[in-house]
């Protein structure tokens, strides 16, 4: 702790809450309240019902949730593999700058543009992916790979080369060094990157909405559709389901991470 006196510490905490609550927590609390509400009273939701949750957990909604989960899983897995691969390849390579720049592009380009470009690129045979789940997964993967790449790149730069060298001098081939030493040492960063990719993909809307086929509509699309037709409370319930699921998934990932760190 940087602050030692008890009173000063309390003041710091109070200031933190005063800033944190309105910015981060209030929107979340309003959504939570709306998901349980029956009507609006002024700017705040009022009344109490679980009715919206019945709708938010019906077959249709659960389908969307499954779609979201599968998309996020596939996209983060693809992003993690690609990002890690690229980071490993870029390490110590002369093309490092170019590769880093390339992987930054999807962040710099608006996701709507990514969606559009995929639509344009994959709408004609032989690359006809338009109207398939694959194109949604692909879009998500493209969007989150930069984060995976950046996280792994940074972790690789911090990794002490003494470990790899010790392993090599003990007779380990580069592949064995990678599998037994470098990747295990990168595990905390890899799992952090996985969590980030997963969360980003779970919430992605702008590219998804341009690409999703009718049988592969992730949850954010449903939320958007609900609010679009004025069903704010149902939309809120769906949003709470989305948040809770994402949160639980992140919790699971962070448990893997703490285990990896504290081993």
């Amino acid at each position, binding site marked *: 702790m940087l602050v030692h006196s008890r009173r000063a510490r309390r003041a710091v905490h109070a200031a933190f809450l005063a800033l944190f609550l309105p910015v981060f927590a209030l929107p979340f609390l309003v959504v939570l309240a709306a998901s349980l509400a029956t009507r609006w009273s002024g700017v705040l939701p009022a009344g109490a019902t679980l009715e919206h949750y019945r709708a938010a957990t019906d077959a249709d909604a659960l389908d969307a949730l499954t779609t979201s989960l599968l998309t996020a899983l596939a996209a983060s897995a693809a992003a993690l593999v690609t990002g890690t691969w690229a980071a490993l390849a870029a390490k110590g390579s002369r093309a490092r700058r170019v590769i880093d720049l390339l992987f930054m592009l999807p962040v710099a380009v608006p996701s709507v543009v990514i969606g559009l470009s995929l639509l344009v690129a994959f709408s004609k045979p032989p690359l006809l992916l338009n109207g398939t789940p694959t194109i949604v997964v692909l879009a998500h993967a493209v969007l989150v790979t930069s984060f995976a790449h950046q996280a792994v790149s940074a972790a690789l730069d911090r990794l*002490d080369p*003494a*470990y790899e*060298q*010790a*392993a*090599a*001098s*003990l*007779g*380990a*081939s*580069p592949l*064995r*060094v990678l599998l*037994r*030493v470098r990747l*295990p*040492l990168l*595990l905390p960063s890899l799992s952090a990157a996985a969590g980030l990719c997963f969360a980003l993909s779970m919430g992605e809307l702008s590219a998804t909405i341009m690409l999703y086929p009718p049988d592969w509509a992730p949850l954010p699309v449903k939320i958007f559709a609900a609010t679009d037709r004025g069903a704010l409370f149902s939309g809120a319930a769906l949003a709470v389901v989305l948040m809770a699921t994402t949160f639980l998934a992140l919790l699971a990932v962070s448990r893997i991470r703490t285990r*990896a760190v504290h*081993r």
Partner: protein
Amino acid sequence: MNTGIRFDGVSVAYGGNIVLDALDLTVEPGEVMALLGPSGSGKTTALRAVAGFVQPVAGRVFIGDRDVTDLPPHRRGVGMVVQQYALFPHMRVDANVAFGLKARGVHGAHGARKAPRDEIAARVTEALEMTGMSAYARRYPRELSGGQQQRVAIARALAVRPGVLLLDEPLSALDAQLRSGMLAELARLHRDLPDVSMLYVTHDQIEALTLADRIALMDRARLQDCGTPQDLYRRPRTEFTASFVGNANLLPVTVTGDGVRLAGAVLDVPAAGAAAPGDPATLCVRPHAIGLGEGPNALRGTVTEVQWRGATHRLCVDVAGHRVTADVRELHETSSLGTEVTLHFAARDAVVLPATAAPVGPGGGAAHG
């Protein structure tokens, strides 16, 4: 399995900057060679050239009679121990020690047809016993002290039974007491493993003197001198050697017919080989070889400093403007500052060296008095 190391004109450069300049050096099978020198002199670089982590721009490196210059590190079959241990933090001690055995695909030793797993377990146990770490096999590295981690690192390197062991300042992260204990232990290890050649990088002359069969002295990317510790200590050939291996008084003298002259005093120390009368030279006398009182080769001067060091007194005496350091047995009456004293030394304890342009002060690079 007798494997030495041979550097054959090995040069290493970083970005055009030569940091190892045409090193010629042979470590005989079973020999402990200390690579001693000031910071930045290229010791680690020489070691890394053997391990394969740096590619020489010229010259060849041999391990045994195998030219390994173009081999990747994992094919060189050397053991390596570095200053910061580099134990794998995600593996327990036994897994760390087993790592090299698994990587190399251990064969049953001496044709014994043991299952590889049993063989690995046996070798891990053996290596941990050798370093006294058996009780810690199931711990993680971060649960060990620095000294224990270093033992594990040594066990890990030795488990694969390398013919060559490279050590880069393995004790420098330990405190002084632990260091001298580990030093004795390394010496014992080497007695137990007489076939293993060791290249031991250090900038600590005590470690080098204690452990090494021979010392290679490096300075500014070059090998300056190489010889047994006794040789380098008793018969140094250069001022750098004299000042870096042990403490030394280095005094500017002039060569005369059958001795040298130091500011008027004629000393009966024969100058080496080619020196002609009138040539400048440097007289090297160890502080402990100098006695107090009258005797042969007397030097008169005034005391400028007295340090009590337990068993000895260190006197610093100004002799005609030159500072002479003498370690004399504990004095009963301490000479006070400014007293006139006479010092003497035996001719066989002194060496006359060719003078160099920039004389090195007494005790240069020597932190241990």
